[in-house]
């Protein structure tokens, strides 16, 4: 079974990303699937009868299109066709902070060690690292920085509100509302 990083640990991946399903009938049975937004929108009711379904978003998909589904969807994946396409970072930020999505938020596609720290700051908690790369090596990416200046999904309190108060306590500890 393929593996991925979930919450800073390497775990087995039960989910299958369905990249281009020709139809609803072409979906694998009995296995949790992550379907494209377009299929979810066209066949939402039929898909909802399956036990485990997630949705993946292209870089230009509007995360707001899932309004109404955020409470019920267990998993949303965001695709990075190339790691240099940074739209997925903002998609993640909106899913967490605007739409209050609390399920698994997974980065898929060209997911590499050197971007993991940024991805996690933006609210991703699962990382399907590209298949030809070592997950053990990728884990090291999280340790690139202990802290940053900005307010992020993971650390909503910007550094300037933490510099003087409890400076040492907050170091490298996720914020209370870490998804």
């Amino acid at each position, binding site marked *: 079974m393929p593996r991925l990083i979930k919450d800073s640990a390497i775990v087995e991946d039960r989910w299958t990303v369905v990249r281009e399903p020709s139809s609803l009938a072409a979906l694998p049975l009995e296995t949790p699937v992550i379907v494209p937004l377009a299929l979810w929108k066209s066949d939402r009711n039929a898909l909802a009868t399956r036990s485990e379904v997630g949705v993946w978003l292209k870089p230009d998909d509007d995360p707001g299109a899932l309004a109404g589904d955020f409470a019920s969807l267990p998993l949303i994946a965001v695709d990075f066709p190339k790691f240099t*396409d940074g739209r997925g970072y903002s998609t993640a930020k909106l899913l967490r902070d605007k739409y209050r999505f609390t399920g698994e938020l997974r980065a898929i596609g060209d997911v590499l060690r050197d971007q993991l720290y940024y991805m996690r700051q933006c609210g991703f908690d699962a990382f399907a690292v590209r298949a030809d790369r070592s997950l053990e090596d990728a884990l090291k990416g999280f340790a690139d920085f202990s802290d940053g200046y900005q307010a992020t999904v993971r650390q909503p309190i*910007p550094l300037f509100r933490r510099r003087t108060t409890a400076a040492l306590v907050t170091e490298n500890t996720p914020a209370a509302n870490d998804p």
Partner: protein
Amino acid sequence: MYRYDHFDHRLVAERVAQFRDQTRRFLAGELTEDEFRPLRLQNGLYIQKHAPMLRISIPYGVLSSTQLRKLAHIGRKYDRGYGHFTTRQNLQFNWPRLGDVPEILAELATVEMHAIQTSGNCERNITTDHFAGIAADEVVDPRPWAELIRQWAALNPEFAYLPRKFKIAVNGSTVDRAATLVHDIGVHAVRNETGEVGFRVLVGGGLGRTPMIGYVIREWLPHDEILNYLDAILRVYNRFGRRDNIYKARIKILVKERTPAEFTRAVEEEWQLGRGGPATVPDEEIERLASFFTPPPYAKLKGDDTGLRALIADNRPFDNWVGRNVFPHKVPGYAAVTLSLKKTGVPPGDVTSDQMDAIAALADRYSFGELRVSHEQNLVFADVRQAELFRLWTELKGLGLATPNIGLLTDIICCPGGDFCSLANAKSIPIAEAVQRRFDDLDYLYDIGEVSLNMSGCMNACGHHHIGNIGVLGVDKNGEEWYQVSIGGAQGENASLGKVIGPSFAASEMPDVVSRLIEVYVEHRHEDERFIDTVRRLGLEPFKERVYATAH
């Protein structure tokens, strides 16, 4: 100036360690060329024609003498004993070795410097007025705000992979010395009738292939909302900026295609997400940042130095230098001095390591150990006692840094061009030198008066050619280097983009072309009219006629 605390030091140290490991993995074949490229670019490292080029960040152009000495040392130890100051107020070294770069970054970290985001599709160095804090026309000191924005931009996780590079400039004066109208975002610090500070926000200016003047998308932004608002602009750009065509990927294209009104609406809506949230800037943080930019311990002086007038009357070269290179200071008895990096025969913006050491010593003696880099590629001592101007001038002359040409035709803004840069279509440095040699007669140069000549070796416009009164752009015609000339560009609060006068010229024709443009001006100018004013009054025609009647 801003000083690092424990957090800043750790962040930069971690960045150095990260890049050291990335470089190691690249050299070991664990990272491909394509995977490494964006990582090295965001650490300031280009691969150039002859060698890598490393661009070091000088936040809003402020530099201490200690930092300058470190740059001198790096130039000597890892490069060929010189560096080049850029129009983004940064410094580049043209000959470092790839394997040495992590070590250079580690050395920079010891003096609170780095090369973070000096290149790549991310937020670049924040620039501002090189006379910040000392100009009489200043409304708000922009430096604390530039520092606030610098920290927000540095390693911002959401905006590390933008469609294209992104440049922000901050201005706090009634006069715009930071070219804010041609930035992706221009931030104008202003005061309302009660004296409260707020911001006017401009978006969508820029040079490059499609030059544009920025649009005001908000006349008044409460100062504590600045980061929330910038977040909103960047998020709209990150999500919707074009990524299908590198030449249409800057925010100016998005603003234009969506229309400024529609773009503004999107930003205002996005702003609501962060508005009033944790990134709203508390007064304590503004005060903390402002405390780094308090005035140095000036001597209490009555007014203008009385001896200066006599020295000026006595000494024409000194008079020239004071007239061109000395800028008034808001504190009585002080002045700001521009060190010209535009001596004929030296590539504009270049300084040797020996000069850097000497400048650092002079900054310690004459200007509280601090200096600034201007986007015109000169250096500034901001706090010099008028009574010491003559001695300083004498010393600068000995170093070749007292050319009295600030604001004149030979104060050329110029990118490194085809001699160094692999993007360039044509060389720029030899053209600058040829023009400087043509106008080596100081009396004639002074008679011409204020005129800016900006030159870029390619469309990327590092030499800001669109906003030069005379703009020169290197173009490639069937593998040969040609030069396209525009006139009528200007920086400042009345910024305008130059118009191309016609077909391009060979390198050898360029001094004559500039001469003829100047001749037309001298013949037609009204009293007290600058070159740009005459061009605006007469239009292109008389200039075109003269240049093409005789050149072709």
